[in-house]
């Protein structure tokens, strides 16, 4: 089954390009279908009792060394959902048929990369798939011209920063792989785990380098500079995809994977994670507070939320990984929804400058309502999904006796709430500016995904103990 998760999207790309040009209009829907299948497959494979061993013959043909666990399932589920949302947004906001075609293809390529990240068992393959995702995303940012007029040179600048820092991160990761080759003799997770268990400083230098590389990829403080530019520069559907899953998978999920499968419970690197996490939360939140471009605020909010995941990894290991995984999922859902909302607003208003807005809520009630749900969830207010994952993160920290960091995590939620309230106030509330008197609600094509995501957030929040039991019952 896990092989299929990589091969099917790949074959879909091949098939799409073999089709005659006239049939290319269907590309978006084909890739939508593939993403839906992937999400369903990831879900079935990990979280239900349906037997999926019918595909073992594939493993004898292809010698991929993969292993999927609950974490990978969660990431692939996110990737599928976020990808579908991005495609729906692309259908509305990209104007050119050729652009849509390329978008569909590149999303599929990136999806293979993300699924690869989710399932690999060695450091180098991890690097390869991170790179696949990065290159596909990079092309996505630069390729589209839709709305480029309003973004001007930003496209170039954001993309440039992204690719340069991405290569620098690669250099860090490859150097680290070299060190592991020297000190562990191999680069599979198991070998690395053994080497980390043995005394020796070289291995820890290597691990620190690899983590630094991932910090860059995930946009964590102090390497967060590129992220807001890249998100702002990207066209609407690409920023949905990037914010929803790409950065998270290639930076944060990879981190999660490495911590969970190579570091034991004795974790000398824990302090690094705690400090970086806390710093990221606070710095990201305050940067978000000062933004007036909606996408930039959301981007810094992402930075801040990624900090929570890293912080969770520094806590009690088992609970921390569970909490981090859940926060990963919740945040992917809510943030892709917010970027989709931003896309709807940009589509209707032609601007993302929050100072020019005001009173949009009365004109676009669905967008306003779903935005409220997503922001409150991210700010960690019950009974929405975000509250529970934050609670688990704080519990993980508390169990590890990191009281100070737990308090930081809780109180930073207040800053999160503050900037999201300011967003609500500036965008949706207040008297409607005469300029927007005739603004209409976004097209149904854009509303369907955001409403669906908001419902997921609410349902997961209300039924959380049940969902948690499903997760735990599977033996995480």
């Amino acid at each position, binding site marked *: 089954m896990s092989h299929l998760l990589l091969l099917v999207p790949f074959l879909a790309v091949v098939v799409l390009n073999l089709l005659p040009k006239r049939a290319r209009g269907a590309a978006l829907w084909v890739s939508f279908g593939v993403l839906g299948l992937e999400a369903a497959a990831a879900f079935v494979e990990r979280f239900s009792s349906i037997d999926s061993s019918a595909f073992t013959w594939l493993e004898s043909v292809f010698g991929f060394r993969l292993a999927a666990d609950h974490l990978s399932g969660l990431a692939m589920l996110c990737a599928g959902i976020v990808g579908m949302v991005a495609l729906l947004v692309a259908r509305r906001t990209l104007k050119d048929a050729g652009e849509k075609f390329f978008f569909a293809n*590149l999303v599929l390529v990136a999806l293979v990369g993300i699924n690869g990240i989710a399932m690999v068992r060695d450091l180098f393959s991890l690097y390869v798939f991170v790179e696949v995702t990065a*290159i596909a995303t990079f092309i996505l940012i630069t*390729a589209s011209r839709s709305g480029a007029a309003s973004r001007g040179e930003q496209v170039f600048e954001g993309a440039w920063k992204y690719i340069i820092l991405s290569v620098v991160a690669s250099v860090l990761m490859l150097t680290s792989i070299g060190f592991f080759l*020297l000190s562990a003799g191999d680069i599979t997770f198991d070998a690395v785990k053994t080497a980390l268990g043995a005394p020796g400083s*070289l291995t820890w230098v290597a691990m620190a380098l690899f983590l630094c590389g991932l910090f860059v990829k995930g946009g964590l403080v102090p390497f967060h500079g590129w992220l807001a530019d890249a998100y702002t520069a990207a066209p609407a559907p690409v920023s949905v995809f990037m914010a929803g899953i790409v950065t998270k998978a290639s930076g944060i999920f990879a981190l999660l994977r490495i911590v969970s499968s190579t570091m034991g419970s004795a974790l000398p690197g824990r302090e690094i994670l705690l400090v970086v996490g806390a710093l990221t939360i606070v710095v990201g939140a305050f940067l978000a507070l000062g933004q007036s471009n909606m996408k930039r605020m959301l981007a810094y909010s992402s930075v801040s939320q990624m900090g929570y995941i890293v912080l969770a990894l520094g806590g009690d290991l088992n609970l921390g990984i569970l909490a981090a995984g859940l926060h990963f999922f919740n945040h992917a859902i809510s943030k892709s929804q917010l970027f989709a909302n931003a896309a709807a607003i940009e589509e209707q208003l032609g601007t993302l400058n929050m100072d020019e807005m005001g009173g949009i809520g009365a004109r676009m009630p669905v967008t306003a309502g779903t935005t409220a749900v997503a922001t409150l969830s991210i700010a960690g207010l019950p009974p929405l999904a975000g509250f529970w994952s934050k609670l688990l993160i704080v519990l993980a920290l508390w169990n590890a006796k990191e009281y100070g960091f737990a308090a930081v995590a809780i109180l930073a939620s207040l800053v999160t709430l503050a900037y999201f309230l300011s967003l609500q106030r500036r965008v949706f509330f207040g008297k409607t500016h005469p300029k927007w008197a005739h603004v209409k609600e976004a097209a149904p094509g854009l509303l369907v995904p955001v409403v669906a995501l908001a419902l997921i957030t609410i349902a997961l929040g209300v039924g959380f103990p049940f969902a948690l039991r499903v997760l735990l019952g599977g033996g995480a």
Partner: protein
Amino acid sequence: MIWMTLLLVVLVLAALWASMTTALLRAALGLALTSALLAVVMFSMGATLAAVMELSVCAGLISVVLVSVTSLTQRRPLKEALANRRSRLRRYWPLPLVLIAVGVALSFVHAPVEIALRVPAGDGDVRTVLWSLRQLDLFGQILILLAGVFGVLVLFRKEAKHDD
């Protein structure tokens, strides 16, 4: 050992030249030279296949790309280039000194390094490793090439539109 050290010194010098020379074209050539020297180093360490790759792809293909980019973008007026040269000098003169300092500093380090010397029994021929153990990476390579093709297509198409 001596030969290897000399070779590496030349390698670093080539890289230094590539980063310090004024004309972009020469910098690209310097990079090609660096690549070629690196290939020689690889060869003498026994990494034959990788050396061939390095020589053909990096020293060859990448240089072609760089040279064509450079020639396509050389339209700057002479004055600007001259002004640029002066400011370049300011920014680059410390580099050789820094490199020497780093080299000297590191040559005093003799700390023990724990290297896991495995018996190379499981480490067979590079082709076997690549095709049977690293299949996943090959799959990744294919994907990246695919993405690269898309990139070229997209960027090329963009130019065509732009010229209209």
